[in-house]
């Protein structure tokens, strides 16, 4: 395999990795994979049944603390896990938002009743979530969100609009950021609700994203949400959101890195034998120079990722360090997509399933990279974070 030498993740992580592989070999069989690939591209990656299978065998919440039913794995083991899952291409999106963002928030901010109600179901793969953060007027400036929730007896009544919720057309629940105090300063008046997407008054408008998968907009018209579904105190939502996000950045980064490395390995593997115009492509000095540069960048992205895990294992929260990793890896993904297009030529344009597309994922990788540079806080915002938090530059 044409790949960079792996960093030793330690014996515990290596053993854990082997365990994951064994499970995958049994449960993510070639037949399963073929069936999954027969689905339209936009449906792939999300499979409620597979999530339940993972839940049944304890593969959801491996990084959760044991008291919440998790395996209490270290960050390194979790990274090994997400890498294996990403490498296998197994669909994890149906449970991943609940497992990561929602659960993280519930650990810290949920009541005992909420923890008892939601965590076991998430762990069994029986609850799927989308995130309801962005709005037409609140993208980078998330705190400008306007979707309102007003208390009415035992319920909150929600009105407003959300955008760009990945999986929002498939999920059962949404993790919704709402404004509960319009008078308060921007960050102060926000709360978080878990909302059943099948509630009366919710209208979904699914749409396609640039990389060929779906996301959705939702309209909320007097949607009644039980007050017990508010996570964290009223008007304390900003903290709930940012805590959960910080905790999850590294795992999201791990999945991204695995995708990048897999695509790069496939590209180099292809180059070993590709012949163009009677000449071996691998001998082309421009191709070699570019592959060398990308390999170096991949090593750097791994280094950033390892630094983030070290910090977490030391009990710190990587903030600007996480932003550094995100900016670098997402822009690397874009460079890799561009390089693949240049190296593969017109064939690089062909969609994944097209005939004669040996590396059909490449054009989708390029289109996906744009989400990496925008989603979860644009790279412009990340650079603000690096400058203001990492370098202490004035606001």
């Amino acid at each position, binding site marked *: 395999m044409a790949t960079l030498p792996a960093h030793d993740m330690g014996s515990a992580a290596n053993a854990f990795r082997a365990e994951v592989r064994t499970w995958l070999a049994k449960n993510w069989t070639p037949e399963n994979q073929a069936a999954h690939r027969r689905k339209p591209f936009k449906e792939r990656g999300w499979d409620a049944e597979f999530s339940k299978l993972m839940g049944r065998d304890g593969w959801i919440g491996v990084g959760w603390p044991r008291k919440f039913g998790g395996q209490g794995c270290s960050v390194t083991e979790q990274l090994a896990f997400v890498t294996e899952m990403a490498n296998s291409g197994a669909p994890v999106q149906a449970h991943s938002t609940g497992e990561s963002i929602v659960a993280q928030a519930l650990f810290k901010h949920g009541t005992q009743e909420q923890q008892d109600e939601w965590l076991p179901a998430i762990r069994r793969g029986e609850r799927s979530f989308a995130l309801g953060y*962005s709005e037409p*007027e*609140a*993208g*980078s*400036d998330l705190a*400008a969100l306007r979707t309102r929730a007003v208390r009415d007896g035992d319920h909150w009544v929600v009105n407003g609009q959300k*955008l*760009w919720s990945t999986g929002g057309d498939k999920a059962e629940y949404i993790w919704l950021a709402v404004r509960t105090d319009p008078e308060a300063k921007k960050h102060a008046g926000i709360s978080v609700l878990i909302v059943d997407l099948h509630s009366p008054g919710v209208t979904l408008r699914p*749409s*396609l*994203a*640039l*990389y060929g998968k779906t*996301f959705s907009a939702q309209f909320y018209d007097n949607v009644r949400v039980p007050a017990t579904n508010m996570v964290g105190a009223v008007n304390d939502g900003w903290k709930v959101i940012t805590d959960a996000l910080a905790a999850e950045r590294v795992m999201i980064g791990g999945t991204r890195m695995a995708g990048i490395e897999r695509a790069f390995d496939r590209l180099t593997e292809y180059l070993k034998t590709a012949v*163009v*115009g009677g000449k071996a492509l691998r001998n*082309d*000095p*421009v191709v070699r120079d570019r592959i060398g540069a990308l390999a170096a960048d991949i090593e750097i992205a791994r280094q950033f990722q390892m630094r983030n895990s070290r910090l977490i294992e030391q009990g710190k929260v990587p903030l600007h360090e996480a932003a550094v990793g995100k900016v670098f890896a997402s822009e690397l993904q*874009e460079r890799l997509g*561009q390089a693949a*297009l*240049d*190296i*593969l*030529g*017109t*064939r*690089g*344009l*062909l*969609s994944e399933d*097209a*005939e*004669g*597309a040996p590396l059909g994922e490449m*054009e989708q990788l*390029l*289109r996906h990279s*744009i*989400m990496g*540079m*925008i*989603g979860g806080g*644009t*790279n*412009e915002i990340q*650079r603000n974070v690096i400058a203001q938090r990492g370098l202490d530059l004035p606001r």
Partner: protein
Amino acid sequence: MDVRLTSEQSLLRDSAAKFVAAAGPKVARGFRGQSPGFAPARLREAGELGWLGILVPEANGGLGLGLTELALVLQQAGRGLVCEPIGLAAISAAALAQGPKLHPMLERAMSGAALIVPALQEGAHGDEPSAPRTRLARSQGSLRVTGRKMFVCAGGADGFLVSAMGPDGPVLCLVERDAPGCMLAATQTVDGRSLFTLDLADTPANLVSPHPGSRDAAETLHHLALIALSAELLGVMERAQEITFDYLRIRKQFGKLIGSFQALQHQAVNIYIRTEAVRSLVFQIAANNEPFGIDPALAIAVKAKASEDALVVTQTCIQLHGGIGFTDEHDIGLYLKRAMLLSSLFGNVAAQRRRYAAGMNLSA
């Protein structure tokens, strides 16, 4: 930079802009995944306006204009994400009219009644146009071609201009779609448009005579294609940039217009510089070259530059839009996808640079 245009050229550009006003992203979206992926009636309309014969001498029924005029029309086509293959049809008609003897297909090609497109590419990585692997041979008194052409924009086409190696060197010949031994296989691309693999097995063909001033009609057509695609890419990046700059002027975040943030201003300026550079190059080259005597180095250079910059510009445009730019329903993504398609046709930036280096005797 404003290209200095004669009043006739301005009129032509304006009429192209008017034509394009009826196209645009919404229309382009409707053609995704469709066959043939454009409206034949609109192609005939372009024929009536004379654009398909824009390079054809007046004496032969064309407009007898030059590369500048071709570029002006295709720039507009790029701006409007026009799906009708006006550029490919126009250069094919020009190719049919270049020789001393008029090709019988010329008139229908110019009117848009028949769509003839180039089928020159044989590999994914761009080709040396004067060394096709497709073979032309004479058998039983008629000419026959055998070989495989790739990435042909064959949707709705009635015939192909195929480059082939004949007994005396490279030639260009016309193959009709319905000819025996002519097989097409479609592949979907990122743009939603299909590209085709054209397999020819002992297929009847007839020769297209080269321009008196050039030795190889296939090479001439290849270079015309590079200019045509570059002009269209220019239009794609121009329009994407306009849409983006308009958005920067109205979108507010953190209580300010996002166009007031320096980080975004500087990115906007960087793509503006790239677009202007491509514009200068396209029109400089168009003004200083005859359609049948294009300097190969310049044709290669402009396609390299336009292919690279169009991708950078359209991607930056999406980044400047933020989340909304990533939605399929927003138009800006269509410009990226069109740029990806046009950049790769007839060789992407890497392929062009390789050929340039080879031509300069720089390659190993």
